C-alpha cells in the first residue's frame, strides 16, 4: 500500500469546525442563518469526501500530518490523519447522512430560540466524528472519541432548562466516561508494549509478535469496554434510551447513524489485534447477542416511539458487534452503513410524526397517520421492512450476512455455545421485525386516537426521508457485492457473499416476514390480543416494560454508593476540611493581625516601654552574648 501526502485531507474536518464557529457567531444575531451555514459546511465536506474517494487509486492511502503533537523520549505522536477505504466508507456515511440531517434540522428547529447553539454543536459533532475516523493513531481517534461524547452531552441536554433532559445528558456523559477509562487503559497497555500508538506501526508490530496472547486479550477487552460505553452494549447501554430527551435530529445523527457506530469502527480499525484475542472475541459475541436480545425484548412493550427506536438501535448495534466478534468486519461495517440509512430514516420519520402531531410521542395517541402524512408513512414503512430484514432491502443483506458470519465462526471458545447464540440471534431478528411493525401499525394504520391536527412536514424534512428510504431500498444490493473487496485491504478477506435468486432471498428472510405478518395481524385486526398477551405474560411483560430494571439495579448497587461517597467528600472533606483549612488560615492571619495590632495603641507610654525593654535586651545581648555563644 502506498501512502501519499495530501493536504486536502486537513480540510475535511476543518470545514465543520469553521461551520460550527460561524454558525454560532453569525447565528447569534441572525438565527435563521445558523442552520444554512451549518448545512452548507456539511455539504461542502461531503463534496470534499466524495472527490477524495474518487481520487483514491487502487491501494492508495492518503495521509496528512497537521503538526507534531508531542515528543517524550522515544515516544512521539503526530496529530496525523489517514484516509483509507474503511475511513472512506465511514466519512461518506457521516457527511452524507449528516448533511441530510442538517437540512432536516433547519425545518425541525425553525422556531427554537437556541437554534444557533444547536447548529454550532451539530457541526462540532461532525468535526469530532470525522477526527475519530480520520485519525492515524489511537490518540487522535481518542480526541474525536471524547469530542463526540462531549457533543452528545451538549445536544442531549440541549433544552437544559428541563432538569430531566439535563440529567439525561449528564448520565450519557458519565456512563461514556466509564467506558473511556477502559479504552485509555487499553491504549496505555499498547504503548507500554510497543512504544507507539500509530495504527500502521501497531499492525506491523502486533503481526510480528503473535505470541503475546494474554496481553492482546486484555487490551482487546479494555478497548471493548470503551466500545460498550460509546456503542451502548451491556453493561453501559443505559444512557441511550435516556438520550431520547434530545431533539430528534440529534437522536437520528448521533444515536443511530454515527456516534454509536464509533465502537464498531474502532474494532474494525484494530482488527489486527482482535484476531489474536479469540477469548475476547468470544466474550464480545456473547455480550452482543445478549444485548441484542434484551434490547429487542424491551422494545416490544415501549409506548414512546423514540424509545422503541432507541432500544432498536441498541439491538442493531449488538448485531454489528456479533459480526465484528466473528471476525468478519466487512459485514459489521455493511450493517453499520445500512443501519445508518434505515435508522436515520426511522428517527427522522418519528421526528416528522412528532412535529406533525404537535410534540406527541406516545404511540397510543397516534394512529391512522398514513392519510395525513403519506410521505412520512411510506418512508417509515420502507425502513421498517429494511430493518426487519426482508429481501431485497438493505437490512436483509446485512442481517443475513451477520447471521451467516456468526454461524460459521471458528472460535474455539464458542464451539459449545454457538447454537444457543444463533437461536437467540434469530429470535432477536423475529422480535425486531415484530416490534418495528408494531410501531408502524400503531402510528400510521387504523384510526387516529389523538387530539391534535396532524399534517405532513415541509420539504426540508420529507426530502431527506425520501433519500434515506431510497438508500435503504437499493443500497443493500449494490453494497453487498462491492463492499467486501473494497474493504479487504483494511480488514482482510474473511467471509464472502454468494449470489442468490429472488426466491432464495425471500425464503431466507422468512424470520423477518413472519415478524411483520404477526405484527400487522396483532395491531390492525386482532387489536385486543396485545393487551391480553401483556396480561397473560405478566412477569415477563412487566420486566420488558421496565427495561429489565437495569437502571434500578445500577442505582441500588452503584449509584447510591457513589452518591454517599460524593456526599461524604463534599460535606466532610471539601466543606469541612479543605474549606476549613483555607478559611482557617485566613482566620488565623486575621487573629494574629488583631493581636499584632494591639501593640499599636497610639499611647506614647506603651511605645516608651517597648523601647526600654528592647534596649535592655540589646544590653543583655552585649554583656552576656559572648557567654551564650561559648
Amino acid at each position: 500500500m502506498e501512502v501519499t501526502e495530501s493536504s486536502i485531507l486537513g480540510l475535511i474536518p476543518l470545514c465543520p469546525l469553521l461551520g460550527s464557529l460561524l454558525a454560532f457567531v453569525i447565528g447569534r444575531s441572525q438565527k435563521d442563518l445558523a442552520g444554512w451555514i451549518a448545512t452548507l459546511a456539511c455539504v461542502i465536506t461531503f463534496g470534499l469526501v466524495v472527490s477524495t474517494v474518487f481520487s483514491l487509486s487502487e491501494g492508495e492511502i492518503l495521509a496528512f500530518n497537521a503538526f507534531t503533537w508531542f515528543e517524550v523520549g522515544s515516544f512521539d505522536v503526530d496529530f496525523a490523519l489517514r484516509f483509507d477505504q474503511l475511513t472512506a466508507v465511514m466519512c461518506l456515511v457521516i457527511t452524507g447522512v449528516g448533511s441530510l440531517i442538517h437540512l432536516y434540522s433547519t425545518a425541525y428547529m425553525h422556531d427554537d430560540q437556541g437554534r444557533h447553539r444547536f447548529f454550532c454543536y451539530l457541526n462540532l459533532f461532525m468535526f469530532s466524528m470525522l477526527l475519530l475516523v480520520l485519525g492515524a493513531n489511537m490518540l487522535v481517534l481518542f480526541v474525536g472519541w471524547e469530542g463526540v461524547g462531549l457533543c452528545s452531552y451538549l445536544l442531549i441536554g440541549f433544552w437544559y432548562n428541563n432538569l430531566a433532559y439535563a440529567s439525561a445528558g449528564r448520565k450519557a456523559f458519565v456512563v461514556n466516561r466509564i467506558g473511556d477509562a477502559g479504552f485509555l487503559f487499553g491504549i496505555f497497555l499498547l504503548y507500554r508494549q510497543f512504544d507507539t500508538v500509530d495504527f500502521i506501526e501497531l499492525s506491523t508490530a502486533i503481526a510480528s509478535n503473535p505470541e503475546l496472547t494474554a496481553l492482546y486479550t486484555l487490551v482487546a477487552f479494555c478497548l471493548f469496554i470503551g466500545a460498550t460505553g460509546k456503542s451502548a452494549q451491556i453493561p453501559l447501554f443505559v444512557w441511550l434510551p435516556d438520550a431520547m430527551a434530545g431533539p430528534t435530529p440529534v437522536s437520528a445523527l448521533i444515536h443511530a447513524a454515527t456516534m454509536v457506530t464509533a465502537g464498531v469502527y474502532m474494532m474494525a480499525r484494530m482488527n489486527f489485534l482482535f484476531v489474536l484475542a479469540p477469548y475476547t472475541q468470544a466474550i464480545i459475541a456473547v455480550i452482543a447477542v445478549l444485548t441484542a436480545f434484551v434490547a429487542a425484548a424491551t422494545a416490544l412493550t415501549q409506548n414512546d416511539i423514540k424509545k422503541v427506536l432507541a432500544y432498536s438501535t441498541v439491538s442493531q448495534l449488538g448485531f454489528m458487534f456479533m459480526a465484528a466478534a466473528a471476525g468478519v468486519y466487512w459485514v459489521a461495517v455493511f450493517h453499520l452503513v445500512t443501519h445508518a440509512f434505515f435508522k436515520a430514516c426511522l428517527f427522522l420519520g418519528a421526528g416528522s410524526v412528532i412535529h406533525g402531531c404537535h410534540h406527541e410521542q406516545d404511540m397510543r395517541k397516534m394512529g391512522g397517520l398514513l392519510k395525513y402524512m403519506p410521505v412520512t408513512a411510506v418512508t417509515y414503512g420502507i425502513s421498517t421492512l429494511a430493518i426487519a430484514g426482508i429481501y431485497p432491502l438493505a437490512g436483509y443483506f446485512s442481517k443475513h450476512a451477520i447471521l451467516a458470519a456468526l454461524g460459521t465462526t471458528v472460535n474455539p471458545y464458542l464451539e459449545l455455545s454457538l447454537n444457543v447464540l444463533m437461536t437467540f440471534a434469530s429470535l432477536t431478528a423475529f422480535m425486531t421485525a415484530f416490534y418495528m411493525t408494531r410501531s408502524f401499525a400503531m402510528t400510521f394504520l387504523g384510526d387516529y386516537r389523538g387530539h391534535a391536527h396532524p399534517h405532513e412536514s415541509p420539504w426540508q424534512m420529507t426530502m431527506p426521508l425520501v433519500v434515506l428510504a431510497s438508500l435503504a431500498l437499493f443500497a443493500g444490493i449494490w453494497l453487498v457485492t462491492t463492499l467486501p473487496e473494497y474493504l479487504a485491504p483494511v480488514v482482510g478477506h474473511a467471509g464472502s457473499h454468494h449470489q442468490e435468486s429472488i426466491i432464495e432471498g425471500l425464503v431466507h428472510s422468512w424470520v423477518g416476514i413472519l415478524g411483520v405478518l404477526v405484527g400487522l395481524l396483532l395491531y390492525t385486526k386482532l387489536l385486543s390480543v396485545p393487551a391480553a398477551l401483556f396480561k397473560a405474560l405478566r412477569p415477563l411483560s412487566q420486566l420488558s416494560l421496565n427495561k429489565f430494571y437495569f437502571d434500578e439495579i445500577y442505582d441500588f448497587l452503584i449509584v447510591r454508593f457513589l452518591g454517599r461517597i460524593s456526599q461524604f467528600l463534599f460535606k466532610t472533606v471539601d466543606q469541612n476540611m479543605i474549606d476549613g483549612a483555607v478559611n482557617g488560615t485566613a482566620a488565623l492571619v486575621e487573629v494574629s493581625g488583631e493581636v499584632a495590632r494591639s501593640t499599636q495603641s497610639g499611647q506614647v507610654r506603651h511605645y516608651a516601654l517597648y523601647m526600654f525593654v528592647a534596649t535592655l535586651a540589646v544590653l543583655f545581648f552585649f554583656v552576656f552574648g559572648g557567654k551564650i555563644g561559648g
Partner: protein
Amino acid sequence: MVPVSYYLTLSAIMFTVGVVGVVVRRNSIVVFMCIELMLNAVNLSFVALSHYLGNLNGQIAVFFVMVVAAAEAAVGLAIIISMFRAMKSVETSNADQLNG
C-alpha cells in the same frame, strides 16, 4: 570615703524611678520631670566615676548632658503647649489618634 558603688546604686535607683515614671504617668509634664530625673541620674553617675577615676572627662560629659537637657526641656515644653492648645489637656492617653 564613700565607696563609688553607693553613688552608682543611687544613680541606678534614680534612673529606674525615672523610667517607671515615664512609662506609668499620664501627665506629660510629670513625664518630662521623670526624663529630667533620668538625665540627672546619669549626671550623678558621670561625676561619681570621674572623681573615682581622677579623670575630668566625666565632668565634661555632664556639661553636654545639661546642655541637651536644657534644649530638650525648651522644645518639649513647646510641644506640650501646642498639645494643650489642640486637645485642651496634657494627658498622654488622649493623644492616641495614631493607633492601629
